[in-house]
């Protein structure tokens, strides 16, 4: 196991170098004027251009700039936004909990519905329930989620008035953030109405962000279950006279769970992409909205740093999922 972890860690190094190269190169190679891009300005005097160029270190050799970029990143310095005069990492850290909270609720929604739906569809293969569920899953998988969000706002918030349209919590509630998670913070402060408000704000964004993962998990669970249900050990369990519930719940489901866990782990990158759209629609103050706004005001110091941090987070989470997977499934370790 230790060997597997070390091997997996070694693979991180080229990926890390690649990610930093991309983040470093995008602004310098593709843009017409990297100084203007990083400063977030369109027009500037030659003097200011020269000053900023000096400040960003553009007069030094490119490998030195890159080395500096990587070493700073390793020390947690991902640049400073010229516009807002704040460190990119600080901005990220204040907004990240909002995205994590949203993503966790979205995955909770996807898993709680997707896994049971997939199991029932597999057990009742070919039934109307199976067909309707798989049809719905394909619709969910094909969903333009930004439109889905707008539609839900029209119906649930607009026509029915059940949920708020945007934001994380009612404006009347204000308390010092402790964890950055509105649901947890409101409970720590013992503010029950605030907790309810936070939950109500989470409903629609979680559904929107969770729709595609839900569809993928339901399909994956069904096919994993179908595969396992045809195995000899399930037939043995059946012929021993065990109740169908026990056969499905214990003998089949446990083994079907392995590919499902991988699928869930693979959704992390997808959740980040989905968060960009979901947060834009619901004015959710998280990483996705932050990146879009930085792009909008041409604050490329923030874009560059943010892109790098997000990619690193996805990389670390994927590493974590792989190791977890190897713990659950010994076959992986041997390879």
């Amino acid at each position, binding site marked *: 196991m230790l060997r597997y972890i070390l091997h997996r860690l070694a693979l991180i190094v*080229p*990926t890390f170098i*690649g*990610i930093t*190269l*991309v983040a470093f190169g*995008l*602004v310098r190679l*593709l*843009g017409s004027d990297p100084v203007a*891009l990083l400063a977030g300005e369109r027009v500037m005097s030659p003097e200011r251009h020269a000053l900023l160029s000096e400040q960003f270190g553009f007069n030094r050799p490119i490998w030195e700039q890159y080395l500096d970029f990587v070493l700073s990143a390793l020390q947690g310095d991902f640049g400073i936004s010229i516009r807002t005069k704040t460190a990119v990492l600080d901005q990220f850290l204040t907004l990240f909990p909002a995205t994590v909270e949203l993503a966790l609720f979205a995955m909770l929604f996807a898993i709680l519905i997707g896994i049971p739906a997939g199991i029932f569809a597999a057990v009742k293969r070919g039934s109307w329930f199976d067909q309707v569920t798989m*049809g719905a899953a*394909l*619709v969910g*998988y*094909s*969903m*333009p989620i*930004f*439109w*889905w969000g*707008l*539609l839900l*706002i*029209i119906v649930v918030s*607009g026509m029915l008035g059940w949920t708020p349209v945007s934001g994380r919590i009612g404006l009347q509630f204000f308390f010092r953030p402790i964890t950055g998670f509105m649901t947890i913070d409101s409970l720590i402060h013992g503010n029950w109405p605030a907790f309810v408000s936070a939950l109500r704000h989470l409903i629609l964004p979680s559904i929107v962000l969770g729709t595609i993962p839900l569809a993928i998990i339901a399909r994956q669970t069904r096919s994993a279950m179908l595969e396992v249900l045809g195995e000899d050990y399930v037939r043995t369990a059946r012929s021993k006279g065990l109740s169908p519930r026990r056969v499905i719940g214990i003998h089949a489901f446990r083994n079907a769970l392995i590919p499902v866990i991988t699928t869930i782990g693979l959704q992390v*990158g*997808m959740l*980040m*992409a*989905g968060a*960009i*759209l979901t947060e*834009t*629609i619901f004015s959710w103050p998280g990483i996705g909205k932050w*990146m*879009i706004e930085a*792009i*909008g005001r*041409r604050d*490329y110091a923030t*874009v560059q740093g943010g*892109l790098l941090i*997000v*990619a690193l987070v*996805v*990389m670390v989470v994927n590493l974590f999922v792989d190791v977890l997977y190897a713990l659950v499934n010994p076959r992986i370790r041997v390879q």
Partner: protein
Amino acid sequence: MTEIASPVPPKTGNLRWAALREFWRYFSVNKGAVIGLWVFVVTVLIAIFAPVLAPHSAEQVFSKSILVPPVWQQGGSSMFILGTDAVGRDILSRLIHGARFSLAIGLVVVTIAMISGVTLGVIAGYFRGWVDAAIMRVMDIILAFPSLLLALVLVSILGKGLFNAMLAIALVLQPHFARLARAAVMSEKTREYVTSAKVAGAGHIRLMLVTILPNCLGPLIVQATLSFSNAILEAAALGFLGLGAQPPTPEWGTMLSGARDLITRAWWVVTMPGLAILVTVLAINLVGDGLRDALDPKLKRS
């Protein structure tokens, strides 16, 4: 089965025809796939004949008819069947013309991503060694970024617009083709027919393109279908965020970009373009599911 098991050895033409017929037999078992194919064909026809079918031009402004509701709702007009948008343009006409953009986006993106991805994947799988390592590391790095975020940043630096959006999406979709092609080539490379072609004196390029590649087509076709629908979704998302096709282009995602402010006043402006995206993408994904079942020999008859 009876007509296929004929004792007479068929000519090549017949063989191809028989293969196609066998494919259709497996494909048509899946009712959803057949429906998806029909919807897709209709969409293609709508795109081709857009100028004939659309009641108005996509950009014609009827300044006296702003936010007219659809024809079945009170205040609707038979002149604008699906209503008009905030500037007074006919939504139905814009949707019909928009079909051209979505299909063109899918086609261009998949072509670019497939050609470059398959080329890289075949080279990697054929030569192995450091070439393989280098190519696949680059693909891994592209996959390390959330695709939409990478596409967004690329487009914002290259400049807003449909062409750059298509390039960016092709770039983020290409690793999937490269991985598939590489895996397929690696599993085919050691087969006897490849060795025999090599012994017969076939060069590297001939071996890669003529001998091996045609036998790896199945999974690549399925991936191309899935990428086609993905490309439409991502391009629409970029358009929605204001970085893809620019207004007044009637691209479906771009049509939604200003619509958030109208959700309480004019539901039809928001609903219709998204529905068009959903139906098209769903149809293509249905076809993709059917293709996978028909082309994947492991799943056949299961």
